[in-house]
């Protein structure tokens, strides 16, 4: 499968370019050569990935070994896995965040399926930092919830390739991206125009929770102001 095309690809283009262009890899960004060549960034990965050195060579386009097809396929797979794991580390760096920020602005990750979020863009997030535990999920900052990616091809991407911390670090680094949540809408089902009793009650209960939160936030702010004075 991979051997024929990637062998020819290796000579014509960079492995990373091929990887990023492959279907289903739309969420990944390009990792700098600088980051890749720094061995410190790879700490611990050699125990995680089979054929680590070969895979690394393949990513860096310096793979010049002769091996049978089966091994080659194995190395290919290792390289993809390794790239994902490095990617999880890279997107937490300043440059990585910048790249993901650009992709976010482009809407490369899709939009929130929740109707009341009005197609707010989402970010990829992992549910665990350990590989092979859960596929990637989408995080919406507007409703602060995680969703399954809409397309089946994303359901096979490991969540560990993005990590659990990435979206939140992005919002720490770019606080202006945080949407305004002061006037939230709440959906309440109705029958013939009359809101369903229990749901209306729940909505009201949730609203009091929200108001409590607002009050707490206000008190934090007052505290802060008092301290500054």
């Amino acid at each position: 499968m991979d051997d024929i095309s990637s062998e020819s690809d290796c000579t014509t283009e960079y492995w990373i370019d091929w990887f990023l262009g492959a279907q289903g890899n739309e969420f990944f960004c390009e990792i700098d050569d600088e980051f890749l060549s720094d061995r410190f960034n790879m700490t611990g990965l050699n125990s995680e990935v089979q054929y680590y050195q070969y895979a690394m060579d393949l990513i860096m386009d310096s793979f010049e070994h002769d091996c049978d097809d089966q091994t080659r396929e194995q190395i290919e797979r290792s390289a993809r896995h390794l790239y994902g794991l490095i990617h999880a580390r890279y997107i937490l760096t300043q440059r990585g965040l910048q790249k993901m920020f650009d992709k976010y602005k482009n809407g490369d990750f899709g939009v929130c399926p929740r109707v009341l979020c009005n197609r707010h863009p989402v970010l990829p997030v992992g549910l665990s930092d350990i590989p092979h535990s859960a596929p990637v999920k989408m995080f919406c900052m507007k409703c602060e919830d995680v969703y399954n990616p809409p397309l089946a091809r994303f359901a096979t991407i490991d969540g560990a390739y993005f990590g659990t911390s990435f979206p939140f670090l992005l919002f720490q680094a770019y606080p202006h991206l945080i949407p305004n949540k002061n006037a939230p809408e709440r959906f309440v089902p109705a029958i013939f125009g009359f809101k369903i009793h229990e749901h209306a009650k729940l909505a009201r209960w949730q609203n009091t929770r929200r108001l409590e939160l607002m009050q707490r936030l206000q008190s934090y702010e007052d505290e802060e102001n008092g301290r500054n004075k």
Partner: protein
Amino acid sequence: MSNVGSEQWSKNEEEMEFPAAEVMSESSTAAGNVGFGENSMMEGVEKYDGKGDEGEDEEDEEEERERDQEDQEQEEEEESYYESGSSRSEVETWISSFCSIRGHEYFAEVTEDFIEDDFNLTGLSSLVPFYKEALDMILDYDPDPDEPSRLPNMPVIENSAEQLYGLIHARFLLTRAGLTIMAEKYDLQHFGTCPRYLCHQTPVLPIGSSDLPGNDTVKLYCPSCADIYSPIGKEQNEVDGAYFGTSFAGLFLKTYTDIPGPFGVPSVKILAASAPQQTNDVATNSSKTSAAASTTAAGGQPKSGGETENTNGDGNDTTTTASTAVTTTTESEADKWDIYDMHLFGFKISERAKSGPRMRWLRERPRDVSELGI
């Protein structure tokens, strides 16, 4: 009311003969030959390590090809029907063909008696242009051959017929027959599942935000998180919400009260087969209740004392076999609702942070349902 509901529910489980499903399986077998080649093509594309643009083009082409094939299949089907009508046991009506169009998976087949009763159509004639012709088309009445055809072109009437059918459909859903059909469809997950990860694939219901056509497209209501979502498919996103109406989802949940809601009823979790240990625990748990082989009934621990029995209303119970260990469990500590917490390097983000949690209330539920005073 709930008694009647569950009775119907169990009845549905027994006889799963559903016309749309029949149509679907039929078309899929008809697609057999072509479909096979298509699949292998798909594999080819996935494995093909081409450049990005090429890959996408391929994909587009693929989709187009798929669509073409489907069109062809449809044509073929129609042709074969006209050629050898006797070979098919059932004559394909306008309604069943409408419901089998791609993107119309949410529609139920409205019974003809319902449409033939003029009372049910009150007021629709003013909403739909070419009302009479459209109605004739829906009911497959042949136009009078003697009458000179002063009708406009067919697409216009076809359009009206679709609109009229949609509006009748919205009314039909609120009847007992309509609710029953939709319950079957819900059971088979024809409407899909909730995209929210922590809803664990709860089946959803179609809902409109307006009862008048042309305002908004159809949305999906999840009973577990009590929120509305956009359908994933492009075709479904073009269906008018008024064809399902604003009241249907609410009425459905009021009728079938055994569907787990966002209240004191314990949240029902579906555990994938990937957790064998947990599954075992669950099995022992649910063995207390009468767990039939096909239906894993999640014995409710009614915290509020409201419900005495909770059968799992998800579509899974019909598909569950002994081998696919899709098991349901009641959450033992029912006061713990699934809310996603934002973590940075393993630490919860504080409320005080600017990027801290502000929307937890949206997914929060009272620990005790009596707090709501229901």
